[in-house]
């Protein structure tokens, strides 16, 4: 960021988001700010509306009310492609991978690259070899050495390997914001460490990250600020310096006031 004023404008901002499912209110006027270059953790009990919040930000869900801003400008997303187009990449809690497609196809799903020349422009041939090479590079960068065969169907992978594919996809394509909804839920200690490392790398690259996690040690390890979601709204924002894990959890569960 070139000047001081833009550093105080959030990259991504949500104001008063409301989302109802019949009688259930998933979001009851939720706010969120994500500042340049920061890792913002979002914590909260099950059903607090964390996934709903980030689904609004990623275009997967349209809020009933409220506004969103990207670098201070109002945005509305009619679907995931709208958010992807402005550089917001998301790893969903449900992973959103196509089980029968292979690793490379999954990484490029929805933005397949075509081969050069008339074969690509007229016959629409996708560049399988190029995509496989790039997918392999992206996974190697993540340090996922256990994936031998990039043409392996994703359904033959372990849960952690699938998660690695989803994370690598988001990291490879995110240019403004990367959102990770419980990216370490299915991962072993070593793989979790790699994902945390990756989050750090993204921050080094100047890319802000929203991380949803139930794992407090992870959150306190990587987060710059911690957004505490409670009953569909933001209770407060704390930092690893200002609060201890126990205090954050107390706010999260309602045992302590925000």
């Amino acid at each position: 960021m070139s000047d001081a004023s833009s550093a105080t404008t959030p990259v991504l901002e949500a104001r008063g988001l409301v989302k109802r499912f019949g009688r259930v209110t998933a979001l009851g006027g939720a706010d969120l700010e994500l500042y340049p270059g920061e890792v913002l953790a979002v914590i909260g009990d099950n059903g607090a509306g964390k996934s709903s919040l980030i689904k609004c930000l990623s275009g997967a869900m349209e809020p009933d009310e409220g506004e969103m801003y990207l670098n201070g400008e109002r945005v509305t997303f009619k679907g995931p492609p709208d958010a992807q187009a402005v550089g917001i990449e998301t790893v969903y809690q449900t992973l959103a991978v196509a089980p029968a497609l292979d690793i490379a196809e999954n990484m490029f799903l929805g933005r397949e690259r075509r081969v050069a020349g008339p074969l690509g422009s007229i016959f629409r041939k996708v560049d399988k070899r190029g995509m496989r090479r790039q997918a392999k590079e992206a996974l190697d960068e993540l340090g996922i050495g256990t994936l031998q065969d990039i043409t392996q169907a994703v359904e033959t992978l372990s849960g952690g390997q699938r998660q690695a594919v989803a994370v690598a996809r988001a990291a490879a394509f995110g240019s403004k914001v990367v959102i990770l909804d419980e990216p370490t839920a299915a991962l072993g200690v070593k793989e979790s460490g790699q994902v945390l490392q990756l989050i750090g790398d993204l921050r080094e690259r100047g890319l802000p990250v929203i991380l949803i996690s139930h794992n407090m040690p992870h959150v306190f390890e990587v987060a710059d600020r911690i957004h505490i979601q409670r009953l569909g709204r933001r209770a407060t924002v704390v930092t690893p310096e200002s609060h201890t894990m126990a205090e954050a959890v107390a706010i999260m569960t309602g045992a302590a006031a925000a």
Partner: protein
Amino acid sequence: MTSATPVDDATGLLSQSRTPLDQLQHALHKYPVLSPALVLIVSGLVFTMLGDGRFHQPSTIGIMLQQTAVLATLAIGQTLIILTAGIDLSVGTAMILVHLVIARMVAFGATVPIAGWVIDPIHPVFGLLLGVLLGLFLGAIHGGLVTRFGLPPFIVTLGTFYVYQSLGNVYSKAQTTSKEALGDNGETRDVAEGLLLVLGRGISIGTMRITVGVLLALAMYVVFAYILSSTAWGRHIYATGDDAEAARLAGINTRGVLISVYMVAGLIYAIGGWVQLGRSLSASSNAATDINLETITAVVIGGTSLFGGRGRLVGTLIGAMIVTMFDTGLSLAGVDAFYKNLAIGLLILFAVALDTWIRKVGK
């Protein structure tokens, strides 16, 4: 391509702990066409041994290919739809309706009811064009009902199955449009005039005789196999059928994929209708009555999963050939025709059971 089976280098455990059955399961998972190809080969051998020596002759094979052409053509659209986890019960009656409209508009023109306008007979080229538009329109109806109103494809096409069947009978008054009326008066061999029947023209390769329609059907398999495996749209069909919500979250316009698939299937109704005109050299609402279910049979026997997202088009071609082969083979072997459906039925059950087993890989 590197190694076909994933091997964990560090331990080698994955490969060592696999029983032959596991390996078979993984092979079938990776190459779903293996089992229908095997069925085709084995049943071909069996029919050759059972029969009186006519079965494996090129002339018989040529006839079987001619018999398969319409089924094989329509089964392409059925494959696309089943890959999206849908189904089309109305392929046959839709094709028949379209081919009746093409034939009768070219042969007789039409009188618009109530208004009383008279439309003169149209040129075969416009007849086919009209058929294509009608096919696309029917496909758009199916796709629209499935995506906009969220109706199950099974119900939508069960309904349209009856609608098209009835419309076809009402429209043609259940009368056959003859070959003379369709432009073959036994004299002129002008291609444009005889366009509706041109796919019935024979081509001889040695003693094997096939038709232009067979070639068209095979060419369509080549084109659609390429589209499915090598274009983004093709891969999106798989992704949508595999897990529609995941595909949507990944940024795929799944509604657009579904509508376009149903419309392409509609286009194939028209092409199938054209092949049918060449095959029967006439148009009748009573033609190809079994073909609705036979396309599904061909797709399922061909190894494509009814749950969507899995399968290869070439499997469908093999499946269609198996269906015809059982027909021809059993009758040449002197077996009562009633047993054909018994054999086909058992084959379907086997194919579905196999698919269920294959899909358990990695679970």
